[in-house]
């Protein structure tokens, strides 16, 4: 059910239960993740959860579509594991794993139109995959050969944002422009639970509400902002904040690909009909480290992780397919092949990425040449030439 205002009693009850949950230290007592408080269409055991409001939004998901979604989930997990391995092998400088968040990303990205536009954070590599981002482009930034991977206009997805929350304002501006241009395309802002504390995100909600901008605020509440639990960012469910800005919100089981599709479609539909922004809180869990540099053993209770492992987004689709007799050898093999082949392409692409030419340092700073920079470029060229003329060693010692 879309919330347009916060019911004080409900909130009060939730806080009470939250306190009990905190005292018991068990994540599954946490109302934040209990099925009855979230939109859910597919339970962790692979059974369908009836929901007359949201089921119609995924009525068209037939057997083929379900298998395709399953393939997406398997492929993006495989790519994520491959990228993590590439980092461990020294081929990438860093990687932010999305393990556990596959359904939230695939479910939302797969219902977008080509002309919609995504503004994401660094973690949305499954969204990028669904937008059709080339797998080599996906790793450029993490290998350190470029500051951006792909052409935003070619795939309808902006360069991922590292400055927490900044992209939500960009999505809002894009959406205001789309309305001016008379299209019904929608901007989707992806961000985390931690980002909701930033001024930018709150300002984006103010602007989008004032302008009735067609934005979907898609917040993946993966429970963590590096080491900080979501309870430090908000004492109430994140979705409760949006109604105060005049933005209806919904909490969805972020590990349920069907429910995520349903709520995102509803939000997109509102936006396309001129009804303005919607806030989606996809409740999920970051199963891996924040990035490959992080050591979550310092702050994660392994028991919580276990609870969430049982809610795995991929397993529940697998169980559903099994129940419906759709998971035969042919499907399993095809999906595995697709995943392995994607991983191979990503690896080969990654290994093929070499350091850019030194003087490219000076490219694209301004739209037109600047005499100041031209001078620096030519002086640095002379400097490099001095070494090449001499003993042939490159003069690359800056990081020493």
């Amino acid at each position, binding site marked *: 059910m879309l919330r347009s205002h916060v019911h004080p009693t409900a909130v009060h009850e939730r806080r009470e239960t939250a306190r009990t949950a905190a005292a018991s230290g068990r994540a599954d007592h946490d109302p934040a993740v209990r099925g009855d408080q979230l939109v859910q269409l597919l339970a962790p055991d692979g059974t369908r959860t009836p929901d007359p409001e949201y089921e119609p939004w995924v009525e068209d998901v037939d057997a083929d579509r379900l298998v395709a979604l399953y393939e997406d989930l398997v492929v993006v997990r495989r790519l994520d594991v491959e990228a993590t391995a590439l980092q461990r092998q020294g081929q990438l400088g860093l990687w932010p794993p999305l393990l556990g968040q596959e359904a939230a990303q695939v479910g939302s990205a797969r219902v977008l139109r080509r002309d919609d536009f995504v503004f994401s954070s660094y973690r949305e590599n499954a969204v990028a995959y669904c937008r059709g981002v080339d797998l080599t482009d996906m790793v450029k930034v993490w290998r350190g050969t470029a500051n951006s991977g792909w052409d935003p206009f070619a795939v309808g997805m902006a360069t991922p944002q590292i*400055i927490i929350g900044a992209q939500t304002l960009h999505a809002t501006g894009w959406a205001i422009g789309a309305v001016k241009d008379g299209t019904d395309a929608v901007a989707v802002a992806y961000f985390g639970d931690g980002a909701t504390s*930033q001024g930018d995100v709150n300002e984006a909600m103010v602007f989008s509400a004032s302008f009735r901008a067609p934005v979907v605020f898609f917040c993946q509440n993966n429970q963590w902002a590096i*080491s900080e639990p979501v309870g430090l960012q908000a004492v109430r469910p994140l979705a409760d904040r949006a109604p105060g800005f005049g933005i209806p919100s919904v909490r969805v089981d972020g590990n349920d690909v069907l429910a995520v599709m349903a709520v995102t479609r509803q939000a997109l539909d509102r936006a396309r009909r001129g009804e303005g922004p919607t806030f989606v809180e996809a409740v999920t869990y970051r199963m891996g480290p924040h990035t490959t540099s992080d050591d979550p053993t310092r702050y994660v209770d392994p028991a919580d992780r276990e609870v969430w492992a049982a809610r795995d987004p991929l397993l529940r689709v697998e169980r559903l397919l099994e129940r419906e007799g759709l998971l035969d050898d042919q499907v399993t093999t095809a999906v595995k092949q697709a995943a392995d082949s994607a991983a191979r392409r990503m690896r080969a692409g990654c290994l093929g990425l070499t350091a850019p030419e030194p003087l490219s340092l000076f490219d694209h700073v301004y739209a037109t040449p600047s005499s100041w920079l031209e001078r620096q470029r030519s002086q640095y060229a002379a400097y490099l030439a001095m070494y090449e003329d001499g003993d042939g060693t490159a003069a690359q010692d800056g990081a020493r």
Partner: protein
Amino acid sequence: MTAPTTDRTAGPSAPSPTAGPTTLTLAGALNLGLRHSLEEDPAVVLMGEDIGTLGGVFRVTDGLQRDFGADRVMDTPLAEAGIVGVAVGLCYRGYRPVVEIQFDGFVYPAFDQLVTQVAKLRYRTQGRVSMPITVRIPYGGGIGAVEHHSESPEAYFTHTSGLRVVTCSHPQDAYTLLRQSIACDDPVIFLEPKRRYWTKAPVEASLDGAPPMEAAAVVVEGADVTLVAYGPLVATARDAAVAAADDGIAVEVIDLRSLSPMDLATVEASVRRTGRLVITHEAQQHGGLGAEIAASITERCFEHLEAPPVRVTGFDVPYPPAKLEEHFLPGLDRILDGVDRVLGRPHSLTGREG
């Protein structure tokens, strides 16, 4: 002053301020400086993202929440403007906040609070309100990081009257300057050279006999060229002095330490002897510290200069991707090229116009 006055004891592992030198990493020295500041002054509180349970992404605050409690070492919500703005309010109640900004590139959401509030409150209130805030920022490149994790934003802050800006280059100064910054009644932007966090050296955990926070230090003496550096490039400048010595050139290396205010007297005295000045920093050149030093020294002792001052700096481009950073950052050879240039020896621009 309404801050608490009760005392807290430190964890058992911490070297005491009188125990003699201990070998520490630069990060470890910062940790010890924070610990001793927390022990000494109950008004000191720490705030930042991931500084409590995790101990900071560089572990600079490791163990401090455990030993001083979550009311003094606070994990904050993820909002830099919020952190610094809240620190302003704590100052109004007599606290002495030490805030951590996780990386250089993330200080900008707080820039408004720093420039419009923190820097100006003493002046605005004719001295009635002090802002004894220390803003710790890991800065600089050379660690192969992704965008926004390698910047050198010092000039934004040195351009802002009312802020002090200091930076350390070795573990002893990490300890000393941090404690002095925290004790200082002015706001201090405290820049930590992240690529030197793991540098080890003996640290005397005491402020007795320590040089004042504003003083530059001559770290290598030499009669031929003055080389001014600070933060991460002091180590590189020292290496350059060693390399130059092989060529019979005596380079005097000055570690600036305080970037605002700046100890120009020390630089000037050196230039009056050497007649030659090279300044190096990682930050972009345009409007940077190098420009300020070159102009000020030229004004003060023009007639002693044998050659125009030379700046060896990052180029005027946004910080590049990791695989290009070695070309952006001034290294040993580029510094030596600058030294050759002020000495009139053959260098990369020989035969070209300045």
